[in-house]
């Protein structure tokens, strides 16, 4: 029986997280179908249909789905659930919001943030902020799964699935989207960037984060932060990398003025290469860093910018 992937998108672009979830879904149950719920999201559906392994895209195009509000999403996914053995969504703030509603209504447990599919009914997932890994076996019945996308490769855009349009499944009428304030940035998104440079409490102010912006512009990197820097008001909440923020696994993670609390490490320790700049040589960040530089960041970061400029970045 088939699996259904709930697409993550902004009504214009299909997010990389969807392509990665398709890879996970193909290991659970095939064929893979993708649900694109959105408003004027035809281009997203076309992009999803091109993902390798996707047989069919179901497009529910209605203003009701413009912001993937949880209550109408629950209703829509439930209206399609009968035909699927597994329903998967990326573990984004959207997937985390509506998927447990679907699981509860189907009277099945949800398997959150899987890191690997060991067999079609056995999954690896992190617990205790990633300080332990649990291998769990699902009982018979539908499987509702959210996927930590950092550990799955994106399905390539080499497929040729079909697109089927469906109507709205109706508005429960108990909630509505009011507005949003999104961080505007020309840089890549934190969760899909190849290089991430993050600042911690050591940055001392929001203005000082501009030093990191300059490096990020040179390296085409995303800028992140530790919880301490977010709590201090240096940068907005969506910069936060860690157990309760975003989980990233770029090729290179540069930690600047970050001590390396367990909760932060949980969000970045799967990065391929970690570099750390901190003036405290005892900082726990150095225990996970491939390259550590004990230095005052206010000297080292401008120097880093100069060195990169010299090399033509």
């Amino acid at each position, binding site marked *: 029986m088939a699996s259904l992937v709930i697409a993550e998108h902004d009504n214009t672009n299909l997010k990389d997280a969807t392509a990665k979830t398709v890879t996970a879904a193909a290991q659970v149950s095939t064929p893979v179908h993708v649900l694109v719920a959105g408003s004027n999201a035809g281009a997203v559906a076309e992009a999803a249909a091109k993902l390798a392994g996707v047989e069919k895209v179901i497009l529910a195009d209605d203003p009701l789905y413009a912001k993937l509000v*949880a*209550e109408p999403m*629950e209703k829509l996914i439930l209206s399609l659930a009968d035909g699927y053995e597994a329903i998967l969504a990326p573990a*984004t*703030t959207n997937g*985390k*919001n*509506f998927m*447990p*509603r679907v*699981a*509860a*209504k189907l009277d099945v*447990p949800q*398997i*959150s943030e899987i890191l690997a599919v060991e067999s079609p009914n*056995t999954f690896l997932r*992190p*617990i*205790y902020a*990633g300080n*332990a*890994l649990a*291998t*769990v*076996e*699902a*009982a018979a019945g539908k499987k509702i799964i959210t996927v930590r996308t950092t550990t799955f490769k994106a399905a390539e855009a080499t497929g040729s699935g079909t697109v089927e349009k469906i109507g709205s499944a109706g508005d429960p009428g*108990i*909630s*509505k*989207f*009011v*507005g*949003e*304030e999104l*961080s505007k940035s020309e840089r890549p998104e934190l*969760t899909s960037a190849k*290089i991430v440079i993050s600042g911690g409490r050591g940055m001392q102010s929001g203005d000082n984060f501009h030093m990191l912006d300059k490096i990020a512009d040179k390296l085409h990197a995303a800028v992140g932060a530790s919880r301490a820097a977010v*709590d201090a008001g240096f940068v*907005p*909440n*969506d910069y936060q990398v860690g*157990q309760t923020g975003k989980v990233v696994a770029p*090729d*290179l993670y540069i930690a600047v003025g970050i001590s390396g609390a367990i*909760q932060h490490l949980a969000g970045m320790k799967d990065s*391929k*290469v*970690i570099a750390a700049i901190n003036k405290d*040589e005892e900082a726990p960040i*150095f225990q996970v860093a491939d*390259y*550590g*530089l004990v230095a005052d960041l206010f000297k*080292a970061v401008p120097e*880093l910018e100069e*060195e*990169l400029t010299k090399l033509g*970045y």
Partner: protein
Amino acid sequence: MKVLVPVKRVIDYNVKVRVKADQTGVDLANVKMSMNPFDEISVEEAVRLKEKGKATEVIAVSIGPQQAGETIRTALAMGADRGILVKVDGDVEPLAVAKILKAIVDAEQPGLVILGKQAIDDDSNQTGQMLAALLDWPQGTFAHKLELGEGSAQIEREIDGGLQTVEVKLPAIMTVDLRLNEPRYASLPNIMKAKKKPIDEKTPADYGVDTTPRLKVLKVTEPPKRTSGVKVKTVAELVDKLKNEAGVI
């Protein structure tokens, strides 16, 4: 309006977690246990609603072993009015927790249930949303700010790209994120007072809920360890290593 606040007893967030050698779980023997940090934020928000005259009563619920009663006492010391302890040993999955909470909601009829967005032990991030679905209530998850109106609430949420505001009809479910408030410390007089507040003891059977886990944990293992690398002396050396040794820039 009554406000219901579920609180979970978990390993203290400062404790270094150790996986048991037999791979059956993590070692909880003689380990400090505390209220789930997100639940402290829920309790704080509920108590503030009462202090502002918007809530009439704050009820703290915990589902767990006898010692979860201590977690309820913590909530009572912070300002909750009474507690309900649903005694059960062993792991209770979010779906079973949500079913028990639904039965309590049916009995108590709160206008708002405030939960932590996730517990720091199983990191599931499910219970609030599941409870909302079972009740057919709306939800505002990962709350950053709450504005209570007449018959509805506006909840500002922390989402991947920034902040989003939704309006939900009451009764509703809210799950809280880190920056909603800063929980207070209970004062000694309030800790003393909390000892006299009532805690009702129940069992899952009282609510007709079977808590047998539906997911089977085959094993719990340690994550692959990262070994610490090398210290470099200068920025130039760092850039050289990143470019020529690691090949990541």
